[in-house]
């Protein structure tokens, strides 16, 4: 039995219409915690993208051999492997970012998007579509992270990538960085605004 895979849907669905953060509301914890600075958010987004992609791929390769009773444990071991690999590479080559992300890289393992995609997709599909599905969901997560981090760093610190964007003259005229934006509650509010914006564009997402 062969099923035709709609590649476009696999790749684009998770980025907009079925975005894991704004539509499925998964992975909220880390998207609040690591979005103070754009650089950290991008590295975190890429890390999650790599982890979801590779774990989906590997689990999909193994899907017919996994004993059903220890299915979740096997998936966890694979995800943990990927997370530790990413963590080790960051520690070796991007030490300052890895320090800034602190425990959150390790906590990717608890990110519901990773396990969610493995359970929902990789266990029942071939490796290549699973890889793409994982990557696309990671990208959907990364996209939201970057948008939130952009707003938070710009309004909270007046910088982007650590470079001052808001002109000094504005500060001299009395402009002050918004300290509240740096705090996690504001990230939740920004996230809420993004969900609101998305639902008012895509009417079919609205609950009746």
């Amino acid at each position, binding site marked *: 039995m062969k099923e035709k895979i709609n590649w476009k849907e696999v790749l684009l669905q998770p980025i907009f219409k079925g975005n894991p953060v704004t539509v499925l509301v998964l992975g909220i914890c880390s998207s609040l915690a690591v979005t103070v600075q754009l650089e950290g958010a991008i590295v975190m987004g890429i890390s999650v993208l790599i982890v979801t992609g590779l774990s989906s791929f590997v689990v999909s390769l193994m899907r017919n*051999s*996994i004993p059903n009773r*220890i299915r979740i444990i096997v998936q966890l*071991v694979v995800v943990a492997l990927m997370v530790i690999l990413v963590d*080790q590479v960051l520690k070796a080559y991007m030490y300052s970012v890895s320090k800034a992300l*602190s*425990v959150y890289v390790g906590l990717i393992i608890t990110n519901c998007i990773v396990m969610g995609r493995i359970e929902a997709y990789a266990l029942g599909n071939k490796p290549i579509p699973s890889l793409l599905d994982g990557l696309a969901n990671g990208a959907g997560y990364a996209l939201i992270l970057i948008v939130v981090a952009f707003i938070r760093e710009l309004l909270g610190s007046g910088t982007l990538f650590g470079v001052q964007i808001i002109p000094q003259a504005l500060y001299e005229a009395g402009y002050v960085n918004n300290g509240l934006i740096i705090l996690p509650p504001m990230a939740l509010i920004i996230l809420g605004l993004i969900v609101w914006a998305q639902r008012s564009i895509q009417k079919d997402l609205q609950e009746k």
Partner: protein
Amino acid sequence: MNTNGNLYTVIYSTVLVVLVAAILSFVAMFLQDKQNENVKLETISKVLSAAVQSDKSIKIDETTNVLELYASKITDAFYVDGNGKRVKDMNMGKENLNDIEVPTTSDLKKQNDLLKKIADGDKELTDRLELPVFIFDIAGNEIRVIPCYGAGLWGPVWGYIAVAADGRTIDGAIFDHKGETPGLGSKIAEEPFYGSFKGKTFSSGDVKFSVLKGDQSGNPNAVDAISGATITSQAIGRSINLWATYYTPYLQTVAAAFNQAAVSAADANEAGETTNNEEE
């Protein structure tokens, strides 16, 4: 094939775990050198940041060549035992920057284990301590940097304390941690906390230093703790106190030499002579 049998499940999980362990050990071995180098660079930069805190003209950021700055500022680096005796030299990297030697946090942990045993009554171990001391020349002032290490809430916390030439006054301090709660305990690494150490002194009593609740501006031997991070704050206080206790013999010789030099400088001034008396 029956993938639900007991034997299959056991073999499958065993093979999987061994395989994953092998991959991880291989990667860890491969990346170890690079990671250690990062950690060493960070330690050097922490020691240096503690030392230069009183000199506002020196800023340490990502663009600073930490190794070069360290080698140019340091005048002596060595280990002392619990009796204040110098036991071993540290490479300061005067010839080759890559040779700079600093104790890692795992070295500090070993010393901390010894300190705890001594505090529990095993006094003989005092001779076996190897406590690091870094001496810097910052704008003409002799600054000594000594570390401290202890258990925080989730993992180790450690720090470097800069002591002025008199062997008592704290000139600066810097702290770091493995994984204290972000936003609460992690604030020990931020300026409002470590900045409050400047100008404080080690007490000559039993408790050398503490981190206490409430405003400590009137208390020379304590700083204010961080709200919401009681355990981390207390861990810092306890570890400074423990380490300072066993640095005391050394710091007393420093203080004695400092007073001696001050007295002889005063004598020399009275006699109208110049003197080359150096501390230590």
